[in-house]
C-alpha cells in the first residue's frame, strides 16, 4: 500500500473502522494530485462525494474572497455525502499537494447495501464536524470579554442567536 493510503487510514474519520475496513474504504476512493492553482471544485458544481486533504494547502473561496485555508488532515466537501446540491464555495490549491476523494455514487452504494463502512465514515465525519463546532464555540467564548468591553458590544452579544451551540 502506498504512503498516501497509509496516512489516510490513520485519519480520525476512519477511527471507528477496523483496519481491514479502513483499507477497503481507502482503496475505494482515489488519490488526486493537485498543482498550484488547481481548482478542486467550483461554487455551483454539483456535489460529488468528499475529500480528505493529504498534503498541500487549499483555500475555500466565495466570490473570490478567501474564507479559510485547509491543510493536511482536514476534510472538505463532506456535505457531498448528504446531498447532491450544488457546491456553495470554490476550493482552490494554493500549495501543491494531494487529496483523497470518495465519490458520491461509491458512497451511496455502500449506504444502500447496509455496509457498516458507510456508518463508520458518517460517524467519523459527524465527530469531525462536532470537533470543529466545539472549536468555533470555544473561540467565540474567548472573544466575548473583549467584544463586551467595546461600545455597543454587550448589545451586539445579546442580539446574536447561537442556536444550540
Amino acid at each position, binding site marked *: 500500500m502506498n504512503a498516501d493510503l497509509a496516512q489516510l487510514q490513520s485519519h480520525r474519520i476512519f477511527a471507528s473502522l477496523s483496519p481491514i475496513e479502513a483499507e477497503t474504504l481507502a482503496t475505494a476512493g482515489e488519490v488526486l494530485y493537485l498543482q498550484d492553482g488547481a481548482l478542486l471544485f467550483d461554487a455551483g458544481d454539483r456535489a460529488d462525494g468528499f475529500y480528505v486533504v493529504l498534503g498541500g494547502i487549499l483555500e475555500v473561496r466565495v466570490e473570490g474572497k478567501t474564507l479559510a485555508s485547509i491543510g493536511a488532515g482536514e476534510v472538505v466537501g*463532506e*456535505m457531498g*455525502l*448528504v*446531498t447532491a446540491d450544488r457546491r456553495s464555495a470554490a476550493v482552490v490549491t494554493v500549495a501543491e499537494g494531494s487529496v483523497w476523494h470518495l465519490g458520491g455514487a461509491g458512497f451511496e452504494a455502500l*449506504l*444502500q*447495501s*447496509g*455496509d*457498516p463502512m*458507510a*456508518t463508520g465514515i*458518517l*460517524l467519523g*465525519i*459527524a*465527530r469531525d*464536524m*462536532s*470537533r*470543529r*463546532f*466545539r472549536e*468555533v*464555540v*470555544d*473561540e*467565540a*467564548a474567548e*472573544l*466575548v*470579554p*473583549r*467584544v*463586551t468591553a*467595546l461600545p455597543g*458590544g*454587550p448589545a*451586539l*452579544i*445579546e442580539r*446574536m*442567536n*447561537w*442556536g*444550540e*451551540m
Partner: protein
Amino acid sequence: MIPSRLLHDSESMVVLSHADREALAFNMTEVRFRSGDRVLIQDRRSPAAYMLVDGALHAERRVQDFALTGRIESGEWFGIASICDGLPVTASVHALTDVTLAALGRGDFERLLTQPDGLGARLLRVWLRSLSFQLSRVNASLVTLRKQL
C-alpha cells in the same frame, strides 16, 4: 417508543423514508419538560440526542459575566455532538415554555449504528445536515465577533 407522527411532521426528517421514520420512532422516547426546567447542563454529557417537537427552548453558554445565547426551533435537533463524540455539551438548555421532545438515548443510538438495516447511517445523514447548519450559524456569528476587534 413515540408516536411516529411526531417525526412525520418534522422538516428535518423528510429525507428519511416513511418506514425509516416508523423504525426510528420505535427507538425514541417522548420527553416533556415544564417551562423553566433545565434540559441540558453546560459541560456535562447529554444523555440523548433530542428533537424539539413542540414548545420553545433557550440555550446559554456562560462566559464570565456574559452569555452566548441561542434559540432552538421546532424540528431542530440538539445534543447530537455530545452523542456522536461522547464529550460534554457546550451550552445549557432551558425550557422557555412547556416543551415536548423526541429523545434518542445514547445506548439506543449505539445500537442503531450496529443494526444491519443501515438505519443508523441514514439517521447520521440527517444529523450531518443539522450539524452543518449549526456549524454555519456559529461560524457566521464568530465572523461577526471578529469584525468588532
